């Protein structure tokens, strides 16, 4: 699952870091670090994190089938 976070929009609420700690983590007080390609077993957590983001900064793409462009 591919992820990108609009870090202009991100304000460090850290909801994602609570909901999917293996994918999103805070570095220092408010800088977010994330894994742009999340393992499939994290998909549900990542979806929840994206939904919970107070500023809706997280964009997720479910794994597309081969050839889908």
């Amino acid at each position, binding site marked *: 699952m591919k992820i990108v976070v609009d*870090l*202009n929009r*991100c*304000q460090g609420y850290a909801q994602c870091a609570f909901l999917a700690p293996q994918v999103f983590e805070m570095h220092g*007080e408010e*800088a977010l670090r994330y*894994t742009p*390609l999340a393992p499939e077993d994290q998909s549900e957590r990542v979806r929840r994190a994206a939904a919970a983001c107070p500023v809706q900064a997280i964009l997720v793409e479910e794994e597309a089938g081969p050839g889908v*462009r």
Partner: protein
Amino acid sequence: MSADLKNGRIVVVGASLAGLRAAEKLRDEGFTGSLTMVGEESQLPYDRPPLSKQVLLGRVRAEDTGLPRRREVGAQWKLGIRATGVDPIGKHLVLADGEQLPYDRLLIATGTRARPWPNPGEGALDGVFTLRTSDDAARLAERFDAGPRRVLVIGAGFTGSEIASACRERGLEVTVAERGPAPLVGALGGALGALAARLQLAHGVDLRCGVTVTALNGRNGRLTGAELSDGSRIEADVAVVALGAMRNTEWLAASGLAAGPRGLACDAGCRAFDMYGIVTDDVFVAGDVARFPHPLFEYQMLSLEHWGNAVEQAEVAAHNMVNPGPLRRPHLAVPAFWSSQFGLNIKSVGVPTFSDQVVIAQGSLEERRLVAVYGYRGRITAAVSVNRAKWLEHYQRLIETAAPFPPEPAAVDQPASSTPVPSDVPDPKLLSHGPTVALTGHQPDRRLTLMRWSG
């Protein structure tokens, strides 16, 4: 007429962030014609900001930063091939293999590339890197994994500073050489430049400002060190050249479009100008390669190297490519960017270099938690936060409404002193790092300064 715009052939040159977001927006807006994406790199669109951060830290593989899609774009992708020219009369794009791609409307989003080390022989030494592409990041991360004894970073702009930060976090010794008086000074001015310098020193960076690297030395084709303009030498087995970016406009030299070192000039609706300053109606521009007028900054043409601008400008360009005149929109977004380095989150809105004064409006340099507000002739033009991102939205509104500078005292986090000081933005010519925000004057047809790096 409008129905025609939703059909036909659109070619997008540049298959990175701006190109992808434009393609998605074209389909969102109901474009049902043929869409061709041309990209010089062989990868599908990927995200660059993680390359100087998570990838260099060894936490994410360089090939794993592919950009998620907002939707399917139904495009034909021509990747790994460079565009070499455009014929605006015959309306086709020319590719490196000689193929001619006819278009009805063209979007140019060819972005920038890393400025190489000026001496090609030295630049070819094993151990000398630039950082722009996913391949660059993969090679550099691999070299960091091998545990070099010292890394030399040449240029202390955002990229150079983030690389130095990654080195220290990995426990690697790093020297940063910068011709200007402080890191980040070209984008943020003197006050925050001084903070950046203190931060680097506190994290164990061997920071050398006011010097240039006069030579890279090698033995048997491998980098061994560098000589600095103050006569000192350092030993290093890796050097990262972070001298800023060059706009990919050379391929447009014979096109008759207003393309130069500062980018391809366009109007507020992303339509490219030709070399006589006449606006075209079928060639559009977006992202780092665009040079566009902004009403908040006296309609000066801006050249931005910002993730957010690439997205927003691509969306406006795409909208305008498939809508008739009266329905077209201007690209008016307030410039914004972020950087994380040495544990701090730095965010900016507006154009800090479009300023004569700056005031710490909240927090303090000592706490490393603050908002600096920039003013130009008595109005607010930018704000930069360090670990205070939640406040920026407020200042963005003040920028958008041309609110008076200095700002009213904030409700919380009032600083000890709120006297504005000169913003101290140096002439970019005096810096090693190129400006990521360039104010480039008013004339669309000016090809502008050719930057020569003379060491």
